[in-house]
């Protein structure tokens, strides 16, 4: 169980995205962990085969407890490698969005079928990879070779038949959606998800109970208490209040630590944005909504370029001296609805084309606003000196 915040002492596994016998690469998401602050996607920082899941879904364990055992691909056994260290990690300050095009279930499916998602063009929203895209690629590949064999786990590992992944739908869902689904007796696997990465939301669950599964959310009533526009979520207000309190506690603790250990200075300037905005308007006018830019993407890009050009403002203060950083990882503060703040950092923002940065921002904002984002835990745990 990785430390997901300075004062996080425990977390519970809400979903496993892998099973024994699965091949994982560095950076693959392996589990969703519930903390006070949010549901966090946990990445593997080893390559190998999942030998054993050590923690059952729903179980809460202390930070540092092993979650799974991963063996290296050919033979060598390596002891627990999924996040096990108890090094405190301000994960939230460094959470990084994954480019939005491959949702975790599709990544897993593609992975199991031996498909390289980088080589595929998604046909879903924002170019997202859909199940059909992956299956089509798998079908095309299987005419040439037997793709599942490429990632076959060692023979002694229990492994599902290669066709199983096609019929098993791994469901991403919010904790609230799961509670509601449970109380209504709804099987999440049959609920079409409309949330980030195809995640099933509470509204999706309620829609299924009130309308055919194919109905547009617009057509289905949403059961909600009557309250003002800024009212809390539709169920379990106490729970929501607790989460909000936990979020603020985590933010306070992280900020206090950051202020204590990192020299702070502030630069500001006034820019004439007319040329930039005129350019952006021109750029946007020829593009569909999904590809349009907003000024909130231009400014971070400009800041990243400035940090690259003036490395003196992009360095670490360690052991009494300033060390320039080779890369520009740009932290962007995003307000969380109902209170709070998260600051994920798109990596190498200076080199990202504007449209890619815009995509990442769009993705991270929708995750952050919905209380979900990905923590680059492995990186934090491997580079504790950066903390």
């Amino acid at each position: 169980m990785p430390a997901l915040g300075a004062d996080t002492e425990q977390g519970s596994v809400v979903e496993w995205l892998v099973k024994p016998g699965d091949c994982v690469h560095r950076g693959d998401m392996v589990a969703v962990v519930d903390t006070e602050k949010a549901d966090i996607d946990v990445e593997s920082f080893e390559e190998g085969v999942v030998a054993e899941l050590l923690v059952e879904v729903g179980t809460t364990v202390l930070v540092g407890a092993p979650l799974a055992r991963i063996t290296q691909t050919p033979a060598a056994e390596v002891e627990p490698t999924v996040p096990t260290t108890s090094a405190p990690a301000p994960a939230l300050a460094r959470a990084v969005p994954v480019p939005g095009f491959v949702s975790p279930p599709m990544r897993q499916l593609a992975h199991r079928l031996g498909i390289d998602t980088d080589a595929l063009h998604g046909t879903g929203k924002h170019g997202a990879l859909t199940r059909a895209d992956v299956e089509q690629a798998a079908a095309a590949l299987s005419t040439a070779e037997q793709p599942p064999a490429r990632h076959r786990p060692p023979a002694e590992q229990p492994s599902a038949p290669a066709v199983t992944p096609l019929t098993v739908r791994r469901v991403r869902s919010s904790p609230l959606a799961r509670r509601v689904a449970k109380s209504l007796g709804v099987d999440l696997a049959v609920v079409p998800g409309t949330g980030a990465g195809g995640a099933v939301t509470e509204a999706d669950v309620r829609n299924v109970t009130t309308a055919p599964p194919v109905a547009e959310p617009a057509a289905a009533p949403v059961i909600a208490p009557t309250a003002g526009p800024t009212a809390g979520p539709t169920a379990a207000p106490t729970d929501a209040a607790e989460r909000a309190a936990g979020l603020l506690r985590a933010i306070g603790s992280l900020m206090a630590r950051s202020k204590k250990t990192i020299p702070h200075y502030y630069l500001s300037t006034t820019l004439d944005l007319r040329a930039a905005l005129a350019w952006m308007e021109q750029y946007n006018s020829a593009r569909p909504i999904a590809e349009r830019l907003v000024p909130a993407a231009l400014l971070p890009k400009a800041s990243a370029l400035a940090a690259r050009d003036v490395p003196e403002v992009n360095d670490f203060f360690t052991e009494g001296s300033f060390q320039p950083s080779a890369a520009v990882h740009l932290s962007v503060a995003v307000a969380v609805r109902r209170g709070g703040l998260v600051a994920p950092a798109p990596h190498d923002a200076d080199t990202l084309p504007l449209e890619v940065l815009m995509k990442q921002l769009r993705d991270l904002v929708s995750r952050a606003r919905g209380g979900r984002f990905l923590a680059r835990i492995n990186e934090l745990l491997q580079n504790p000196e950066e903390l």
Partner: protein
Amino acid sequence: MTEQTEQEARAAVYAAIRQVAPDVDTDDLDEGARLRQDLELDSLDFLRLIKTIHEATGVDIPERDYAVVTTVRVLITYVALHG
């Protein structure tokens, strides 16, 4: 603009608001509410909102009209008129 068009536009706008801002209760929404200030949609939320509406209704709101659709009511009317 028929009554039905407006109802459809309202349903699409409400659904999009619920998706982008799940904490907003559309059952009890003051349609005079301003999207930015009252519903606290930022520019990326707004983009998601009009994209969701576009997918549901086919109504594209070009950037030059962003400044026009300030409130929930204006947005519904805009969608109804352009649908």
